[in-house]
């Protein structure tokens, strides 16, 4: 399991765990007004990754979510290589 990001307001925490099947969980304080946008970004950036992906959003801008996802994916892939 790896993590990227923080639980600060305006940031997002991304957790990726090894799994046989792809599973995506998204939580956000602003789910009601940005839920679809956040899900779309998560699906797009993590496309093809077979793992359990959890995104806890604390009101992060889309760029921040993308950056945290990208960092998490790189960390996860490095970890797999080892």
């Amino acid at each position, binding site marked *: 399991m790896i993590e990227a990001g923080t639980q600060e*307001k*305006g940031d997002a925490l991304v957790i990726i765990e090894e799994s046989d099947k792809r599973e995506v969980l998204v939580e956000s304080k*602003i*789910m*009601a*007004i*940005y*839920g*679809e*946008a956040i899900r779309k970004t998560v699906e797009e950036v993590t496309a093809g990754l077979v793992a359990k992906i959890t995104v806890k959003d*604390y*009101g*992060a*801008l*889309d760029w921040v979510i993308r950056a945290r996802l990208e960092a998490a994916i790189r960390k996860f892939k490095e970890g797999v290589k080892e």
Partner: protein
Amino acid sequence: MPINAVGREVPSEINGQRFKPFAGDGKTPPEGRRAGSLIRMAPKGRSKIVNSLEEVIKKVGLEDGMTISFHHHLRNGDFVVNMVMRTIEKMGFKNIRLFPTALFPVHEPLVPMLKSGVIRRIEGSMNGPVGEATSYGAMRETAVLRSHSGRVRAVESGEVHIDVAFIAAPTADPYGNLNGVDGPSACGPLAYAMVDAYHADHVVAITDHLVPYPAHPISIYQQNVDYVVPVDKIGDPKGIMSGTLRITTSPSRLKIARYALEVIDRVALKPGFSFQAGAGGISLAVTKFLGDLMRKRGIKASFINGGVTKYVVDMLHEGLVDVVLDGQAFDLDAVKSLKEDANHIETPLAMYGNPYSSGGIVNMLDAGVLGATEVDIDFNVNVNTHSDGLLLHGIGGHQEVAAGSALTIITVPLYRYRVPVVRERVTTVTTPGEVVDVVVTEYGIAINPKRDDIIEAMRGSKVPIWDIQDLQKKAYQICGKPEEPKTTDDIIAAILWRDGTIIDVVYKVKKS
């Protein structure tokens, strides 16, 4: 349902009472005569002390369905609302209409009383959990929100009749003279409670600081107070008084304050000018920077209307302002100054900005700086709901300051975290764009196109000037376009303009 002057569809009846749609500020003339209270005669004797809440509730003859009121000078440190309501619940009363000036997170214990029917509805500001519960449908009837002055108007006009006013009194004598400047729960003025003391059928003071007759100074006078109930503690000083309020340290918020200062400087700053202060982080910064600028320029203000804080008191002591008018004190420096300084004056809320009166303080203001949860491209302002539709804040004095002040500035970040503050359409209209002059963000300012004089005054300024629609587009470009709040067709609250017309309604939010 009729469409009002800000384009919102509003009902003509709330809880069986008729209300007119908002027609524009000053467009709905008053009618009738002022309402009165029950004429009482004090029994013989030199003390009005009653030793328990239960006993006093029996004495005033409380009945199911009656209206009871409270003030919020003790803010999030208040014990009195919960104490009285628990007693009322225990005594088995139902269907009470609660008419506080405002409720805070500390009043969360009222939520089960909404569900059980002890309280049928609340007419007042609901900051935090009570508002949130109401948004999800906890209240049996519809909430009604009024501004500070709108509440005074409602009482004076008879729109709301108070059966019993329960007044938290930081200092009281046994014959009912009250003040807020002394005692362990000192809060400063008792401005919010004055209209209740004059107009309620029965008035009960609740105190934790009983002093020999006569208490002094006197904010609420004995001839209006029927009973005095001593209790251990009326509040927690930590929740009543903020510590020394901190000026924002965020670079973007400080930029907003500097831009606002430049607008005030170019439009309103002159010897003898007047200013509305507040306690928000940006507002404090504006007050502080304004003091610095006045010192540099050798300009003195005639008065500051507060929202009084240490920063305002410092300006008074330094002689940068002649008089402080005080409806609410935020820190201990403000309380001490109210007690000691002759030119720091407690003002009843009836003097603040009631449009149906012979004139309020707000009519004498040159500049007012206000906050918002949202602003839209018509300059409409929302201070009540968040963008997800939840009702989480009261109106405060927002409407009257905006309507009265010669220059009304709204200071807001362009977006908070991911949520755009400058939007196509505010979730709820609290204050109409017609009384808003300048929106100030960290990206620059937008001036209401009908204020040619301000547009002219800002010519040559280094402050970026935007069309409000471009500011909104910028916000959406950064945040993405937000979805509409997930609400149902059920109206959970009516937002009244200060003249008692309906400016907007709040809908029930679906639980996700």
